[in-house]
């Protein structure tokens, strides 16, 4: 069992977390967004081999956050509350 660090609750079992997609994938805004841009936002993924910046949700506390992780070694590099590009 791997432990993931929730920025609010500290280290918890991996089974308490759910993957939420690429960090920085911002929903396009406006009435004239071209179809390819929508497809890009909805479906295309960076899916890197190595360091990945991802959105995760800690289902126990319900908070979303950004986790940096290595997708080969599964090592967690950082974990932080949402901010910057994802700030509401």
């Amino acid at each position, binding site marked *: 069992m*791997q432990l993931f660090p929730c920025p609010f609750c500290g280290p918890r079992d991996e089974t308490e977390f759910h993957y939420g997609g690429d960090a920085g994938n911002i929903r396009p805004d406006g009435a004239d967004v071209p179809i390819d841009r929508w*497809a890009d936002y909805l479906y295309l993924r960076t899916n*890197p081999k190595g360091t990945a910046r991802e959105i995760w949700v800690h289902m126990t506390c319900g908070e979303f956050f950004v986790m940096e992780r290595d997708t*080969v070694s599964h090592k967690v590099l950082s974990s932080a509350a949402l901010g910057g590009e994802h700030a509401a």
Partner: protein
Amino acid sequence: MTRRYSALSLFKEGLAGQTGWQPAWRSPEPKPSYDAIVIGGGGHGLATAYYLAKNHNIARVAVLEKGWIGGGNTGRNTTVVRSNYYYPESVELYGLAHRLYEGLAKDLNYNVMLSQRGMVNLCHSTAEMEIGARTVNAMQINGIDAELFSPDDVRRVAPIYNFSADARFPVFGGIWQGRAGTARHDAVAWGYARAASRLGVDIIQNCEITDFIIEGGRCRGVQTSRGAIRADRIGMAVAGHSSVLAAKAGFRLPINSYALQACVSEPVKPILDTVVLSPGCGVYVSQSDKGEIVIGGGLDRIPSYAQRGNLPTLETVIAGLLEMFPIFGQLKLMRQWAGIVDVVPDSSPIIGESPLPGLFLNCGWGTGGFKAIPAGGTLLAQLLATGKHNDISRPFDLDRFATGRLIDEAAGSGIAH
């Protein structure tokens, strides 16, 4: 020199002291250019090369494999062959693969050990039985064999299932496909490799793609760990690593890579002569010809390129297995492993030209690529040879993510991802 495999050649070689056998495929040095290059020496890549030579008379073809052939997902799956899908597009695709599998050993002159022992997808409630009836109807309308099983039918094909009164997942019936079964996964890779090599295809192992050669906006070849190799038509069938190669070619795909685990027990005497899948338990089981119980389940929950699984998923799978078959409680697991699979939002594959002209895709098969190998190879070969889709591959083009014509088999046939 023995070239053709047969009972007679086996007998002759036995008399001659086994001295006439040849390596099953050649291992030539890469040439500087080919008519077509196939990246990835798994089942799909090798099948593509074989059908390019056989169906389209294009034999100046190289298969480039970064490791050894059949060493990725082709050697890591649970060997199930079936075509019990819901949407007509999927039925055409997997139906083609299933039919080709049935003639494959003869076509390749290589025993792929196809065993059509049947497969039952269990239904655990009246609601699941209604969905089961809908699936059976859809399959029959689309021309695929299917039968709705009663609890007695399930008991007949899988008497060791947990039929006790307090079972967590009681059996209300099931979806039966009699033509489904298993095949020897390594033999599929080796059979295609041997047959392709005999038609002139160069199979080049330990040859990793480092970059694409792009000239005038078209893909004109690849840089590899063994030098530059050029071709005007390049196909890639590199499941698990499709996004990594796409990034080198300058585009993104609608794919996340996940680990899919499987495990086998120690070999035991024959006890299960069919494939049993329980959606409730999240597990499917068969017994290999060697006697091992082959166990598969759902995806790991964490995007990953590590070819090993995480413990919580394995725990879920084993718990489900013991719920289905309490008799397996004494079994010892012998091996556990994982393959990295391309997971696509609609659980259907991607076949077609990539955003980089000249580079064609065969990817996104999720957890079900093995059963589709002959179709994936046939369709990618046609794309490479003609530049045009077959009617069967057209719906699976990458453009469906912009047009919205998704083929959602997760909803259609209940694929668990």
